[in-house]
């Protein structure tokens, strides 16, 4: 099974896991490494290394919250490892899709690429999509 590790600020990683499990049920091989307020990048780097040690060598996707933030600065180097992919901008749709379909992918690299797309596709601006439709749908239902 592909491991999923969320690398994020504060409580975000744990909260994303709770929300994912609320929808998809309990999941294995899914955990968060959290950057806490006031934590130094070096200390966070040590924490990340310790968290990844038990799954060293296994297929893993790191889901980083913020491109350019400290979790990114600290975790990006992991992408140099074999069997590791890193995605930034983690969101709930990506995580749900990963939890449900992570083991069906052709390759880890292909999975990472499709998840980057999935994350972006899930972002919609509802105003232009829905405003002005109200009158139409009322007419249609009449």
């Amino acid at each position, binding site marked *: 099974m592909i491991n999923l590790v969320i690398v994020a600020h504060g409580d975000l990683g744990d909260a994303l896991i709770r929300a994912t499990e609320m929808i998809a049920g309990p999941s294995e091989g899914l955990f968060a490494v959290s950057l806490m307020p*006031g934590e130094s990048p070096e*200390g966070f780097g040590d924490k990340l290394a310790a968290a990844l040690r038990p799954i060293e060598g296994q297929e893993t996707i790191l889901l980083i919250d913020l491109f350019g933030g400290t979790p990114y*600065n600290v975790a990006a180097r992991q992408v140099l490892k074999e069997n590791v992919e890193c995605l930034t901008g983690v969101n709930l749709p990506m995580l749900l899709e990963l939890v449900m379909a992570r083991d069906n992918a052709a390759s880890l690299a292909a999975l990472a690429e499709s998840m980057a797309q999935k994350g972006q596709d899930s972002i919609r601006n509802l105003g232009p999509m829905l405003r002005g439709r109200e009158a139409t749908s009322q007419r249609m239902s009449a």
Partner: protein
Amino acid sequence: MSVIEEFGLVRIDDRLIHGQVIAVWCKHQPFSRIVILDDGVAADPFMQEVLRLAAPPGLQVEVFSIAEGIKVLSQDTPARRTTMVLLKSPLAAQRLYDGGLKYNALNIGGIGHAPGRKNIFKNISASAEEIAILKELMNHGVKITLLTVPGEKSQAFSDLAGRLRD
């Protein structure tokens, strides 16, 4: 002798370039380049790539060891006003100053917890040695301000110094 122009900002932040914060500074003040002076990053081309990749567009990112940086920045004056000098620690700031690269103002934007460090303001911690270094810089006339991003509450180090043991 000509007066050497001040840098746009000399900043201690152990997170170096971390997107949002740098973006806010750039809205507040025009910057054309960030110069990171850190021996570790200077010896780590991959880390330099990671930092460059996420830097705001149009901003040049250069990385030197502290010794190299002192040489390069002493000679080179054109873009000083729009240069942000980024350092990881008070020790780096002291090495820069004592190495001849003087500055009148120093911003402390972030220093994380580590063994031996205690919190002095918001997300800023310092060890006794680091407090001593900052006091020394202050006594040289460097105006030290603790501030993560413009617009937030700031703290003058001089108002804090009397209460801090070194």
